């Protein structure tokens, strides 16, 4: 099959959906002529014109709010927020408006909007361009959140997200864009939101990881397989709604659970998985659930410091060995 980079898969999903549905449009800062801060939307404005690939001033709150207004009028906006850190500028519209409109209006209005945004660290961009903010979003009822780790998942999940009647936030990872390549079918296909995926089968221990951490977990699994330790790596892909069933089924098989996320330790979304597994599959656990997460710190600039804060393969391996003991 044809291989695409993660960023190319996202662009292809948007392009194909915009070709198929005139109601779909892209709006954001420098998504047009510039081609996106990461080059992801390069060439789209030439293909679709400035009315469907809309360059905006730097006004995150209003960009998201305009997406909501357009969605209420029957359009299907894809809103790009240049860095996920900037979601915080738009949280009023995301949390108070988009997430709640369907509910507040008694189910009589929909906000079919996708917000795409790159998050994560490892790029030396410092504390305001490197955060993993999924836990903040995870807490708000009414939002769906997808965090694809592969080009295949990125395309399929985004195509589903655009068709979804609820607001969906797609958290991409900057380090996946041009580093991760994979098989992607040329035609359109959808991956159901809320379905996890087993990225590697194993019988000894369950590791749940998201986004970039999936790749780090897979690398560790590869290494430990040489010692005869078979790790099952589960990627939730959609963190809300979360496919807990698949995680619990795996724990029932392996009896051990390690949770890996890039975000800070306190209040990280995997603590929710830990509490759910502890309450629903306690008898199946052979030992404590281990979380490997970012440290409770802003993301520092220097690579040495950044690599200390963000989970690396050594820390993931150490976590897994602790769980196996």
């Amino acid at each position, binding site marked *: 099959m044809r291989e695409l980079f993660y960023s190319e898969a996202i662009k292809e999903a948007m392009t194909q959906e915009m070709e198929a549905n005139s109601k779909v449009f892209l709006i954001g800062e420098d998504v047009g002529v510039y081609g996106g801060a990461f080059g992801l939307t390069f060439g789209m404005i030439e293909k679709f014109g400035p009315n469907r690939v809309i360059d905006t001033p730097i006004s995150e709150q209003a960009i998201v709010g305009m997406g909501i207004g357009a969605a209420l009028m029957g359009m299907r906006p894809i809103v790009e927020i240049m860095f996920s850190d900037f979601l915080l500028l738009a949280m009023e*519209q995301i949390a108070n408006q988009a997430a709640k409109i369907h*509910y507040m209006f008694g189910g009589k209005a929909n906000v079919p909007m996708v917000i795409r945004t790159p998050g994560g660290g490892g790029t030396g961009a410092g504390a305001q361009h490197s955060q993993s903010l999924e836990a903040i979003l995870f807490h708000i009822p009414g939002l769906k959140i997808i965090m694809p780790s592969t080009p295949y998942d990125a395309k399929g999940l985004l195509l589903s997200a655009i068709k979804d009647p609820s607001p969906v936030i797609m958290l991409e990872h900057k380090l996946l864009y041009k580093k991760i390549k994979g098989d992607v079918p040329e035609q359109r296909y959808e991956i159901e939101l809320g379905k996890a995926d087993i990225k590697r089968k194993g019988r000894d221990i369950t590791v749940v990881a998201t986004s970039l951490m999936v790749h780090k977990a897979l690398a560790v699994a590869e290494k430990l397989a040489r010692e005869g330790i078979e790790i099952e790596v589960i990627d939730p892909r959609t963190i809300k709604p979360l496919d807990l069933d698949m995680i619990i089924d795996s724990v029932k098989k392996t009896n051990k659970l390690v949770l890996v996320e890039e975000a800070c330790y306190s209040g990280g979304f995997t603590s929710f998985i830990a509490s759910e597994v502890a309450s629903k599959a306690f008898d199946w656990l052979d030992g404590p659930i281990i979380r490997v997460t970012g440290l409770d710190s802003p993301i520092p600039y220097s690579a040495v410091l950044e690599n200390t804060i963000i989970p690396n393969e050594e820390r993931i391996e150490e976590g897994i060995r602790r769980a196996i003991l």
Partner: protein
Amino acid sequence: MSNIKKELLYEMLTKMLKIRYFEEQIDKLYMKGEVHGTGHLYIGQEATAIGAILALKKEDVITSTHRGHGHCIAKGADINLMMAELLGKKDGYCKGKGGSMHIADINIGNLGANGIVGGGIAIATGAALAIKEMKTNQVVLCFFGDGAINQGVFYESANMASIWKLPVIYVVENNKYGMGFPVSKAVNIDKLSKRADAFGIKGITIDGNDAVGVYDTLSGLISEARSGSGPIIVECETYRWKGHSRVDPERYRTRQEVELWKKKCPILRFKKYLTDNNLITSADIEKIEKDVASQIIKATEFAMASPFPDPREATEDVYA
């Protein structure tokens, strides 16, 4: 004299009274403890909603505010469903999930009231963007108060509307107070419409208690907006008679000030306009008043008779 057709003048009077009586009834129901939550009454500002919204075409859209009952009624909302919503009943507009601040009716072009001051401004602007994209030739009236004009989202939204010449009119209802904070202390300009200069767009200030004047002015501005000339800011000067919400000690204003504005009642003024110009008889006015009063009673009966929602519905409608 304006050349508003007689039929429309009757509709204006009917709807202004509907707003007034509806709000008075809600106020009474508060006192009786029938209304579980809070609410913000529109009494005193009726001419603005009526003059502006009745100047729209049916297919045009609005966004409203926390003080939104008047806009809802003007846009043609069913007062039975509104009353039921305020009483937290199953048959309410939002099945009892929204309450006073979240009534919407997409089918009649009401994109919703909003509990956040300024929360609807970007949404209205996005609706205008969609209208431009879909070439449906509609206009958006975006209502908000003098308090909301100082929210950053207004600056962001009006700027984008100005660069893309979107068909949205920002109707600033200057009722003199953002909760208890006087507009004179909140801004360093005498007219809020001067903010338009910052965006290179048209801005005017009008008497928001003059239903005929609001209608005539907005009719012209709506045509302009529809023709693609871009957004406009219209400041409507008016006054809120009641407290900000249910509980308000009103320490920020004097009783004399309120009484002064009550003398400028928009409904009395409109009635006087109609009778002075022989456009309606006193008998007709009385008939309309009676009719509206009975509609309010019916709406109250409907709402009282409606069941409360089933507790099992509490987690429904989180996702579409």
